[in-house]
């Protein structure tokens, strides 16, 4: 169980095994979206989200993929550093390939290994490909010295990574300092639910490494990957979203991607970021999200949220798996199923919304959907800018409500500004204090947080009523709009 990964995975392993017996190379190219062994497939045990395949948030064409906002091509960056310019700054001639999220992560790891001799990838069951297949074939390609299994000890895995990274004297993107081969440590913890034995290493060591040594030592080369969030049948110990517990860990970054392309770009950013990063991968998305992903070396910036759909009446902030549920909820809002209670609820709430905002009978609210991407430190300025337009805020995540990311954001908005920032001296656009004050005073409804309940974990048979699903999110949107 624990080390188990979850049932739908196994089937894929089964298929994989057939094909890997002859060749273990070039596995990243394998797109397993069409099953060659569908007769073997057990009925899905709920470990997928049917809405994801049709999501318009995924980039299904090469052109869409290459136009991803914020994408930085590694070769272009190099040109810039050299003061030269070449075709590499453009998207012309760049390749993309269809990948699901674990393949994109595998691709990122492969690039990290091939561009940085100091990089090592390790963790439990990593050598045979990892229980979610993110490291498939890497041991064969880069050797067991650089891609290897560890004994089963999370505190050991992360502590080892910290030690290795501390030898890197990592500054900016230069990975090889004057201390030998140490540097880029990419550790895997098999499930986020099992990160707790390593919490001491992360909170007391990794996050404080730079600070406690007066800036002399750092573990910027450390990245800890772990699968996170619920999958339909993981029960108490394969479903948790522990990011909230990391919110107070100053010095550490926490990143959660929503898709294959994002995962690749954000993971490469995390690996090269001069700070230790915990990179949490929503495991239900490993196979259910498929995108065209550029094959070359690129990054997507940390610390920046992304506006996925632009709107002017309500800001919805979310991340990870919940991005797709929010997308569906917005769809329910604009296209409620006809002739049932959901339509009635929408009609009723929108009536109230129109009356309170004075808009005409046919107008519909537009929703600004924001993917936070980096959870710590998160992009408050973007949320505030959005609020200056919408004046209404809903935050959605799977993790428990109390102590969660949503309550942190809500708290930052209602209690964040100081009296000095209410003065008129600083008028600059970048004045966070002023933006916070304006956001708070401009609110037209209380901030709403929809998270998992405060039960101790996600109970197996009750999961569908624990995870904030489309209708619960819809209801939250209606509540905030109609206030």
């Amino acid at each position, binding site marked *: 169980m624990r080390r188990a990964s979850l049932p739908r995975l196994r089937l894929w392993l089964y298929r994989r095994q057939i094909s890997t017996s002859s060749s273990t190379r070039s596995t990243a190219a394998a797109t397993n979206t069409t099953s060659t062994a569908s007769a073997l497939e057990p*009925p899905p045990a709920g470990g997928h989200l049917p809405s994801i395949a049709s999501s318009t948030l995924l980039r299904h064409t090469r052109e869409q993929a290459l136009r991803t906002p914020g994408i930085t091509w590694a070769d272009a960056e190099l040109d810039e550093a050299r003061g030269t310019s070449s075709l590499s700054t453009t998207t012309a001639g760049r390749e993309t390939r269809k990948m699901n999220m674990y393949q994109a992560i595998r691709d990122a790891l492969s690039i990290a290994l091939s561009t940085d001799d100091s990089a090592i990838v390790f963790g439990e069951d990593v050598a045979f490909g990892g229980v979610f297949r993110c490291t498939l074939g890497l041991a064969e390609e880069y050797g067991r010295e650089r891609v290897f299994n560890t004994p089963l000890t999370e*505190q050991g895995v992360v502590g080892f990574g910290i030690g290795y990274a501390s030898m890197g004297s990592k500054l900016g993107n230069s990975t090889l300092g004057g201390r030998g081969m140490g540097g880029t440590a990419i550790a895997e913890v098999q499930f986020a639910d099992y990160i707790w034995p390593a919490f001491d290493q992360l909170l007391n060591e990794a996050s404080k490494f730079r600070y406690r040594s007066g800036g002399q030592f750092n573990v910027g080369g450390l990245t800890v990957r772990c699968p996170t969030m619920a999958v339909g*049948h993981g029960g108490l*110990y394969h479903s948790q979203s522990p990011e909230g517990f990391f919110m107070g860990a100053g010095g550490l970054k926490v990143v959660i991607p929503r898709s294959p392309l994002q995962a690749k770009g954000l993971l490469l950013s995390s690996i090269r970021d001069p700070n230790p990063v915990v990179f949490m991968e929503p495991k239900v998305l490993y196979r259910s999200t498929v995108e065209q992903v550029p094959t070359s070396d690129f990054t997507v910036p940390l610390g920046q949220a992304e506006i996925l759909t632009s709107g002017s009446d309500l800001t919805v902030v979310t991340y990870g798996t919940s991005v797709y549920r929010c997308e569906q909820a917005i769809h329910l809002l604009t296209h409620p199923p006809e002739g049932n209670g959901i339509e009635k609820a929408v009609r009723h709430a929108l009536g109230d919304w129109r009356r309170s905002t004075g808009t005409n009978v046919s107008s519909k609210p537009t929703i600004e959907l924001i993917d936070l991407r980096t959870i710590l430190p998160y992009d408050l300025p973007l949320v505030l800018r959005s609020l200056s337009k919408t004046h209404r805020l809903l935050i959605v995540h799977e993790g428990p409500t109390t102590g969660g990311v949503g309550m942190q954001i809500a708290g930052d908005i209602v209690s964040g500004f100081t009296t000095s920032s209410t003065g008129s001296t600083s008028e600059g656009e970048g004045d966070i204090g002023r933006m916070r004050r304006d956001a708070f005073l401009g609110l037209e409804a209380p901030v709403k947080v929809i998270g998992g309940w405060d*039960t101790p974990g996600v109970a197996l048979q*009750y999961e569908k009523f*624990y995870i904030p699903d489309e209708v619960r999110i819809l209801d939250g949107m209606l509540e905030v709009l109609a206030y």
Partner: protein
Amino acid sequence: MLRRALPLRSHILHQSASLSTRSPGRLPNTQSPIVSKPHFFNSVTGDSNEQIPAFRLLDGTGVPIEGAELPELDEVFARKLYENMQLLPNLDNILYNVQRQGKISFYVRYGEEATIIGSAAALADDDEVLGQYREMGVLLWRGFGLDNVMAQCFGNHEDTSSKGRQMPVHFGSPKHHFHTISSPLATQIPQAAGVAYALRRSPERSNSVAACFFGEGAASEGDFHAGLLLASTIPSPVVFIARNNGFAISTPSSEQYYGDGISSRGPGYGIDTIRVDGNDVLAVLTAVREARERCLEQGRAVLVECMSYRVGHHSTSDDSFAYRARSEVEDRKRIDNPLVRFRLFMENRGWWNIEAEEELKTRLKADVLKAFKHAEVQSRWELGELFTDIYAGEEPWNIKEQREELSRLLKKYGEDWEPWKRELQKFKNEGQDLIKE
């Protein structure tokens, strides 16, 4: 049962120390003899070429090996051992297929029948068991029953282990002195020391021990080291039973540790230790019985390492042929099968034959199917159980508020939102306990 009067370890230590401390003096905080040549060591056997011996009574064909002293055993008890061992693969086959059909979410195959049943038989039925997750056989030995097993795996309203909150095979039953399984590995090991210390402090439980099971992979966790250290330093009667089956998912034990298995660690904590052939039920029975005796006599932990081989996949989420050869597994199954070994032993004694075997298999299969069919159609617990058992005493405001919020949402959308409507039907009272709240 042979019961030897064992001198206490510390007594031995002091004796030898007094002999060797005559001239060169001694170091503070240790009774080490002083030597004048550098002496490195890396073995608990005293010879780095020799591994720790493994205790075995029956060979692969069920014949006692030379010098073996078998435990006293009558036909009734032998049959009980065998039937319980045979029940595990029968249950396995059904539940494994049930999982493949998507009727339950997860399953781990058991195997290690001799290790589990041999240990269960050696323990007293009220010894406190802290398991990892392959110890269902201990519960069955103690009369937990197939209906309870099925109820837990299906997470239905008869599941008293966790009310459907945990994945399959996470059993628990205070009545059977079996602490609820949790998925994190090795967390039970230091807990076992605490459980045993509580036993020590309860005069009416002075004849009980804690029995703590774990795999060789879990023994890599920090909790393992903490647990053994505590149970020897704060003397607590725990029998630690390591099931060394050679694999932690894909990771072979050769990548799990460099030393001589788990046994070599016991002496590091001052713990009496034995390695045993985990596929020989009589050897396991004898070793755990003796371990238990020592545990009670010394009031301190004892470690038993049972060597076996995981013939099944790690779980239904795993396909082990991705990392080991199918032929290797088939060979193991054939040559070193704990069930066959004990069956041959019983046949040699005239206690078993082909008719008995057929009758048993038919009966067990029927029993398992009956329990399965019953469990399959049962509803889940009431939906409101989502919010119970969080705190004892007064319900805090946040839980109350959240339960009321779900109740409101169900009233508003339960009839119209198809995913909820379908899901509600699976619960006892179809969610009405919350809807009508």
